């Protein structure tokens, strides 16, 4: 953090991405690349799962293998793809967006990142221990998760719990860092209501991590003790309560869904204004709605376990769950309001935003159905739920993540991604996701339980469609990888603001210097998203932009 000049640095050597760096921009890219490595692994597991489900019989892999595959698919996708990729975006975007030179605790930041490959290795290693990997689903409900047929100390479930606990610690370290950075390191003049919505949603999501993760981590430690030391927190034969674990687990793991979807909301709120050339409709309300979601998100967890709790809890948690539809609806309507009468440009990031918006609305409707207890009792633990949350996670959150990657790629690599490949990626992703996840809803309504390695023949038709969709999704990742690699290596040079966007990060060279604005942090004088208003975001904006343009012309 010594350079203070406002000139673009030479493109950084690729070697720094392989070492222990405390630069948030390096860590951000490390997070994202590692996350996509695990995304490919977990995606491959999904292909095998869908291969098994092409036919009713259990005929592709052994049932134990199937159970290990679906357990690891969910675990890796959540703990090694979704959370790390979002933390990568947080690292890349938060400091430049608020004008900070780096994260508040750069070394802590690096430690949080390097825990990811460590617990990733533990999880992958569990495929190679004699017991095989954990096979009881990403919920890992006891007592089935405590059954250890080989009786060895080092078993798949042991490694799984260890990895989840480490992931929790890594996420807590990250959350401390993000919250502190946002609260303490904003540019002069950037009050909370001049902060970009992505930072609002990051703050909300990371607050949830701080509140919720201790419950999961504590619950996981008790599971580890039951498994390894013979305690009986959850073992019924020793007087323990297996349902207690479900409360610990969902007290965090429902908010975890908001940890995932809130940043996607932030990305949509950043991108719709840029590609509609209009201010975000109702900025203050959209920003505040994130924290309403946090408050409500903490009191809905029992809706995951309606079939195992008493009736009075069911009605109570149904009402809180239904209320969440209101602040999320506010956000959806705000994006529609932003597009309305705009000048819309269908770039790759915008296409991913629109696709994500439509998928999210669908997921919200099935979410309200799931919130109502009588319907939930019928479809809980069926493919209806699997379809619902894949619409949320893949249909909305991952689409948002792709939108963000295409949108901010030029900023952090200095190169433009290719539009043609990007649009191909979008079309394949949107079709693949819908073909994969829509058929899961009729399956669930018909009564097909989730997590099954075989099923009755009447479910075959929709399962074949879903499997074809999954294979299409697998293909969809090819243009993405081609695009990322080829445009990073030899894509056209990007200027400091290729999308003509408003935001502090677009007043930095592409890629930004290591300490971003250094000592020359501009003073923010207006709200974000001032499209069409002809008022500068910061003091001396014209001079800053002239200097950047000049430097680009002479490079």
């Amino acid at each position, binding site marked *: 953090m010594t350079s203070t000049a406002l000139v673009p640095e030479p493109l950084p050597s690729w070697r720094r991405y392989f070492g222990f760096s405390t630069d948030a921009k390096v860590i951000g890219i490390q997070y994202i690349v590692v996350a996509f490595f695990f995304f490919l692994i977990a995606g491959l597991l999904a292909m095998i799962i869908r291969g098994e489900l092409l036919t009713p019989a259990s005929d592709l*892999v052994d049932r*134990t293998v199937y159970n290990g595959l679906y357990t690891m698919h969910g675990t890796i996708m959540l703990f090694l793809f979704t959370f790390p990729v979002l933390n990568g975006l947080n690292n890349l975007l938060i400091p430049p967006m608020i004008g900070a030179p780096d994260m508040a605790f750069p070394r802590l930041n690096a430690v949080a990142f390097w825990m990811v490959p460590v617990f990733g290795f533990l999880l992958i290693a569990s495929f190679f221990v004699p017991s095989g990997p954990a096979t009881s689903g990403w919920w890992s409900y006891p007592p089935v998760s405590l059954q250890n047929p080989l009786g060895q100390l080092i078993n798949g479930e042991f490694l799984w719990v260890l990895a989840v606990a480490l992931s929790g610690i890594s996420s807590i370290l990250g959350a401390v860092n993000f919250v502190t950075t946002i609260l303490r390191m904003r540019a002069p003049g950037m009050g909370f209501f001049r902060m970009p919505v992505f930072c609002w949603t990051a703050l909300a999501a990371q607050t949830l991590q701080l509140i919720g993760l201790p419950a999961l981590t504590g619950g996981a430690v008790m599971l580890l003790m039951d498994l390894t030391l013979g305690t009986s927190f959850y073992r019924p034969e020793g007087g323990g309560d297996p349902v207690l674990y479900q409360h610990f687990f969902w007290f965090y793991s429902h908010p975890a869904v908001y940890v995932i979807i809130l940043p996607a909301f932030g990305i949509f709120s950043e991108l719709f204004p840029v590609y509609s050339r*209009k201010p975000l409709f109702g900025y203050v309300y959209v920003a505040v709605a994130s924290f309403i979601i946090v408050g409500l998100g903490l009191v809905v967890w029992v809706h995951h376990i309606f079939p*195992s709790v008493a009736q009075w809890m069911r009605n109570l948690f149904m009402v809180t769950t*239904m209320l969440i539809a209101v602040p999320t609806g506010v956000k959806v309507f705000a994006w529609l309001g932003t597009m309305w009468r705009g*000048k819309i440009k269908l770039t790759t990031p915008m296409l991913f935003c629109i696709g994500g918006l439509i998928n999210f609305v669908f997921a919200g409707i099935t979410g309200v*159905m799931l*919130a109502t207890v009588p319907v939930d009792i019928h479809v809980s633990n069926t493919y209806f739920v699997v379809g619902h949350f894949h619409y949320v996670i893949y249909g909305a959150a991952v689409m948002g993540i792709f939108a963000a990657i295409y949108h901010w790629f030029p900023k952090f690599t200095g190169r433009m991604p290719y539009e043609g490949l990007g649009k191909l990626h979008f079309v394949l992703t949107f079709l693949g996701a819908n073909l994969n996840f829509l058929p899961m809803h009729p399956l669930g309504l*018909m009564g097909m339980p989730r997590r099954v390695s075989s099923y009755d023949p009447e479910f075959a038709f929709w399962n074949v469609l879903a499997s074809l969709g999954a294979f299409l999704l697998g293909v969809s990742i090819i243009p993405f990888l081609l695009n990322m690699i080829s445009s990073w290596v030899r894509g056209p040079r990007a200027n400091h603001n290729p999308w003509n966007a408003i935001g502090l990060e677009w007043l930095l060279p592409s890629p930004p210097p290591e300490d971003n604005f250094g000592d020359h942090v501009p003073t923010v004088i207006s709200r974000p998203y*001032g499209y069409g208003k002809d008022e500068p975001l910061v003091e001396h904006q014209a001079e800053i932009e002239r200097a950047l343009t000049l430097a680009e012309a002479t490079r």
Partner: protein
Amino acid sequence: MSSSSPLSRPGSFSLIALALWIGLMVAISVWMAGQAQHWLPVQASNAAPLVDGLFRFETGVGSFVFLGVVSVVAWTLLVHRAEKYDESDAEPIEGNTRLEVIWTVIPLVLVMAIAWYAIQVNTKLGVLGPMEHIHPRNAQEELGGYLGDRLPAEQVEVIARQWSWEFRYPGRNVSSTELHLELDRPVTFRLVSEDVLHGFYIPAFRLKQDVIPGRAINFNLTPTRVGRYRLRDSQFSGTWFAANQADVVVESADDHASWLKQGAAAPLQSGLSPAVGEYADRQARGPAGWPTVVPAPPPQVNVPGSNSLPHDA
């Protein structure tokens, strides 16, 4: 944030077009609500019509919301696209307080109305019976029979295992691995698990209850349609979770009485347990997959029944 520019007054032609479009969306939503019944299995319990009514209502409302959002997106993509080479910004509308209040209040009223409807259904379901009663499973109770014996409902003890379902008819000396129920007669199940969590789920009845080791759970329902249905384990229970299914036969009072009578006379024999057979095959084939919990031996029952006959749902 009411600093928006005055919205231009729509002409009467566009108002009529909008009204027609909304009418069309309502019609499609009503049609979807009717279709929704066909996505569900046949109704075979008195709970099913209530649950299905709520689901049809939600499908109708949900279809309308989805079509509405997609219509707005489609409209903006048709009408509000930037011209080629137009790099200018649009009119800076920052918000509209009245609109924001409207789109907070309407969803709030809507979801609370759905919640109210759902609570009504819940209450009715509770009166009908399927409100479970959980109590610790203790030895005294196991010896002393059931409090529920004085009720007119038929008593069935359901024992879930890795991986089989066993049904006992106390006082009748009948046990089976196929669940037989009398049409239109309330039944009280006593759900217990010998090992891990299981889910007692009969899709045609729209009912599901987790079976929790260490607890005995009373659970009531009334079957309303003669036929053969599937009972599926719905809470992941290990290696042969998917194969842990049993058939449920709903039959007339006469058929049920004669089934019980024949069952009581039949000798004990091995009941159905597909997991046991698959495990034996797996052992015979040599090492495959990862280590597994060994399936519990097939329960010794009077009537094994079948799990390969065609089922209605």
